């Protein structure tokens, strides 16, 4: 399975090197690749359904539980088929849609990698690995949303989505590490075996909350839903892919994957069901007042994601069955509707509901496809959507615990979905002729291929759902519920409570639609009421708080990085001397035994000269005098080196000293005249600090004589210098041979410093 991902990478990179004549058809080529993988996964159905499925483990760092683990079981197979299948159609669509844009190479590169990353995610059986793919999808979706990067809205939306989803990803990682520390492994298989001990551990609740936060941000659950409508700034093929089969489904996948490990507790059930049902209702509620086709669809996606999360939270066999089925339902109709919306946008030049209408005359095939897809969205027979909705109602009615709330909000959400679907259909296709910027036609069969196939599938599978049930839904359920089950999927369930509920839903939905449609004023008022009640706009809150945070850190940075060099040095010196004094105090148990003697006299004299010139450097009234006396200090010290037979050191010191004096003198020519600007108090303060630092350095130097940590290494080097390194000068042998790596580091530091000086002084102030 790892080879599949490699192929993805190779093809994605290959986009940039293919010959020009093929470039026009790159979308189709990539679609064919996706189709081949679809066929591959399709042929693996029987493998995946046998027991636990396929598992490949590539050891990387087994000591700390980091392995590449790929597994293909019922659950991942469902997702893999959706990713590759819908991916095929999306690429076909994109090859028509993206023709008129610049930079399509980049677009295909991102989108294809995006599909690959998503595939990697669903095939991962190690949670660290899953996290890597998780963040990869966040990152690639950022690039895709910002594809029209010249639009400010697109950039903002992309940043927002990256911030929310990548941040959620980090929370997920933390959660995974917490739970992983309980088990001692990050492999899903190991987690399954230790499910009970995980639930009993103290880390369960924090770990669960963090992992859920990751899943909720990715799957756009309330209150993190706001990034998803913003993401419609992406080109339409991306929206179709992102909403139906990838990205937002990652959170659902994660919940389904971990439900046997973390599920079954009160925390799991209540948090997930409540969040899911709230999201579902609010998504549907917001969608009805939108005016942009893609925005309507985006909000219905939020609602559907809420539904999926809710079903996983209910956590019965029936609800999981409903979830898997609804996954297909939603992927089919949502991809189809987005593609249709993009097509309409292309042909009429607008996505605004108020400018559309009466399109059925101009685009009859589109009309038929849309009606079928909308039927599925509304959950009406004979589409797969109907089946999904029936199952969902059944699951909700049987849900343990808070079933009444779930049922009321759930049905409310569905009622609104029916109304939205009707509204969408009537406003776009029926009614008066719209006021389009462009005269619509229906040329471009590639645009309609994808939605056509998807709605046809939805219709066929709705009529004979048993095929889907046995081949895909059953193994997926058994890989989540860890039990073998036999399920029956039928279109007609008989005349029971669920059917009554469905009937109620449809009637209520129609009623709402008719009220809204007949009284246009009502919708306008509704919108204003909405914007009044929900004057808290989540996206705005997000950007405001981000701005606040940036301001806060800017202020803090300004306080710390004030730009006064003297205070930086002051801080560093003070801090270092306090620490060093502390260290000297802690290790004070050493006996001071040094004999001072004045012989040989010339060394004592040298020391006196050095000390005097250092003192003079501090009090001199001219810069030149300061520098020259500092030079005297340096030369004096090098003479002391020479006396103790450190010839190399002495030569180096003399040369460096010379160069420094020369450079200082040259720089000084360009400086203003010396004048005393600091107050007396400042100078006293500086004197105290300097004395403080100087004294600690002195104490350290004396102490260094008294500390013997272990046998000095110098004898070893002396012995080996000529024998092994053919050199009589040990200092040089150490520099270029024994400790060559250190020298290399020092040279590198020097070079970096030189470049720093070069850049600092050469760059002009803007």
């Amino acid at each position, binding site marked *: 399975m790892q080879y599949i991902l490699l192929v993805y990478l190779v093809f994605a990179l290959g986009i940039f090197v293919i010959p020009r004549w093929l470039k026009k058809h790159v979308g189709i080529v990539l679609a064919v690749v996706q189709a081949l993988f679809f066929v591959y996964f399709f042929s693996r159905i029987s493998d995946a359904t046998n027991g636990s499925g396929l598992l490949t483990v590539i050891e990387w760092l087994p000591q700390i539980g980091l392995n590449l683990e790929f597994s293909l079981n019922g659950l991942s197979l469902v997702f893999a088929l959706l990713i590759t299948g819908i991916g095929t159609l999306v690429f076909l669509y994109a090859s028509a849609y993206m023709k008129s844009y610049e930079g399509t190479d980049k677009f295909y590169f991102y989108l294809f990698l995006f599909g690959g990353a998503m595939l990697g995610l669903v095939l991962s059986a190690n949670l660290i690995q899953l996290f890597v793919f998780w963040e990869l999808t966040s990152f690639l979706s950022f690039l895709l949303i910002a594809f029209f990067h010249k639009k400010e809205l697109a950039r903002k939306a992309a940043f927002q989505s990256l911030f929310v989803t990548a941040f959620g990803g980090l929370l997920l990682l933390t959660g995974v590490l917490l739970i992983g520390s309980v088990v001692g492994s990050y492999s899903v298989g190991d987690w399954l075996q230790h499910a009970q001990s995980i639930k009993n551990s103290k880390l369960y609740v924090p770990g669960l909350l963090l992992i859920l936060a990751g899943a909720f941000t990715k799957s756009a659950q309330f209150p993190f839903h706001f990034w998803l409508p913003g993401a419609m700034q992406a080109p339409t093929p991306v929206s179709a892919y992102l909403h139906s089969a990838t990205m937002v489904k990652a959170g659902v996948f994660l919940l389904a994957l971990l439900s046997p490990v973390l599920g079954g507790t009160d925390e799991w059930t209540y948090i997930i069901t409540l969040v899911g049902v709230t999201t579902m209702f609010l998504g549907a509620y917001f969608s009805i007042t939108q005016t942009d086709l893609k925005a309507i669809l985006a909000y219905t996606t939020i609602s559907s994601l809420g539904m999926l999360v809710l079903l996983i939270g209910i956590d019965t066999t029936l609800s999981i069955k409903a979830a898997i089925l609804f996954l297909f339902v939603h992927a089919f109709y949502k991809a189809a509707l987005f593609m249709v919306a993009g097509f309409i946008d292309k042909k009429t030049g607008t996505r605004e509901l108020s400018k559309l209408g009466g399109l059925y005359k101009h685009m009859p095939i589109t009309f038929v496809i849309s009606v079928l897809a909308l039927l599925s969205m509304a959950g009406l027979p004979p589409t797969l959507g109907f089946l999904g909705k029936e199952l969902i109602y059944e699951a909700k009615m049987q849900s343990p615990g808070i079933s009444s709330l779930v049922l009321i909000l759930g049905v409310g959400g569905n009622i609104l979905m029916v109304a939205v679907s009707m509204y969408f259909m009537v406003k776009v296709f029926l009614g008066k002729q719209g006021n389009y910027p462009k005269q619509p036609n229906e040329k471009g069969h590639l645009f309609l291929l994808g939605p056509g196939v998807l709605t046809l599938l939805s219709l066929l599978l709705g009529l004979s759902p048993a095929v889907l049930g046995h081949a895909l839904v059953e193994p997926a359920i058994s890989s989540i519920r860890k039990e073998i089950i036999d399920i029956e999927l039928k279109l007609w369930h008989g005349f029971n409570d669920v059917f009554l509920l469905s009937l109620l839903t449809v009637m209520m939905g129609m009623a709402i639609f008719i009220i809204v449609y007949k009284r246009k004023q009502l919708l306008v008022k509704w919108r204003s009421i909405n914007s009044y009640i929900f004057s808290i706009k989540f996206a705005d809150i997000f950007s405001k708080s981000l701005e606040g945070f940036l301001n806060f850190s800017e202020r803090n940075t300004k306080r710390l990085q004030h730009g006064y060099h003297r205070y930086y040095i002051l801080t560093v010196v003070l801090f270092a001397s306090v620490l060093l004094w502390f260290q000297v105090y802690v290790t004070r148990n050493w006996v001071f035994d040094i004999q001072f003697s004045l012989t040989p006299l010339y060394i004592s004299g040298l020391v006196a000269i050095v000390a005097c010139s250092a003192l003079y450097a501090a009090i001199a009234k001219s810069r030149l005098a300061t520098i020259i006396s500092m030079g005297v200090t340096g030369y004096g010290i090098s003479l002391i080196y020479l006396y103790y037979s450190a*010839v*190399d050191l002495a*030569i*180096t010191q003399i*040369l*460096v000293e*010379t*160069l420094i004096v*020369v*450079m200082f003198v*040259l*720089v000084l020519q*360009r400086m203003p005249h010396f004048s005393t600007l600091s107050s007396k108090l400042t100078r006293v303060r500086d004197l105290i600090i300097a004395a403080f630092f100087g004294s600690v350095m002195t104490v350290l130097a004396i102490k260094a004589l008294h500390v013997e940590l272990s046998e000095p290494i110098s004898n070893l080097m002396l012995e080996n210098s000529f024998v*092994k*390194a*053919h*050199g*009589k*000068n040990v*200092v*040089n*042998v150490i*520099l*270029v*041979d024994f400790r*060559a*790596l250190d*020298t*290399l580091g020092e*040279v590198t530091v*020097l*070079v970096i*410093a*030189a*470049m720093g*000086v*070069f850049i600092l*002084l*050469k760059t002009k102030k803007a």
Partner: protein
Amino acid sequence: MNSVILQLATPYVRSLLIFFAFVALLRGHNNPGGGFIGGLLAALAIVFSSFAFDRRPVQRKLKIKPGGYVAMGLVFLLLSFSPSLLKSQMLMEGVWVTIPMGILGELNVGSPLLFDIGVFMAVIGVTLMFFFTLTNRK
């Protein structure tokens, strides 16, 4: 600075400094000296002549710019690793070749010399970079 004596002396002093720079570099393995000291001496030669004349003509006359010296130095440092790698020894382990020189005895040449040359070049480049950029301000 505009001193005739200095300007007249410069060619000799400069040649001497550069000569001793190479001497320091080559004798470094057995006697005081080495790449660092040699590099400083060579840089000093150039600094000296830009003292005597003006900085600009000297800088213009340099065949290899300071950045070039730095780059060459780093290349030599990297090159000094290759013998040990080719002989599949530890990275940076010295590789020595003994060349017989007749009456003069024999000469040991090893990869540490390459390393020292690298240090030599890099030090020249870095020092000149400091020097030229610091004195170039208006």
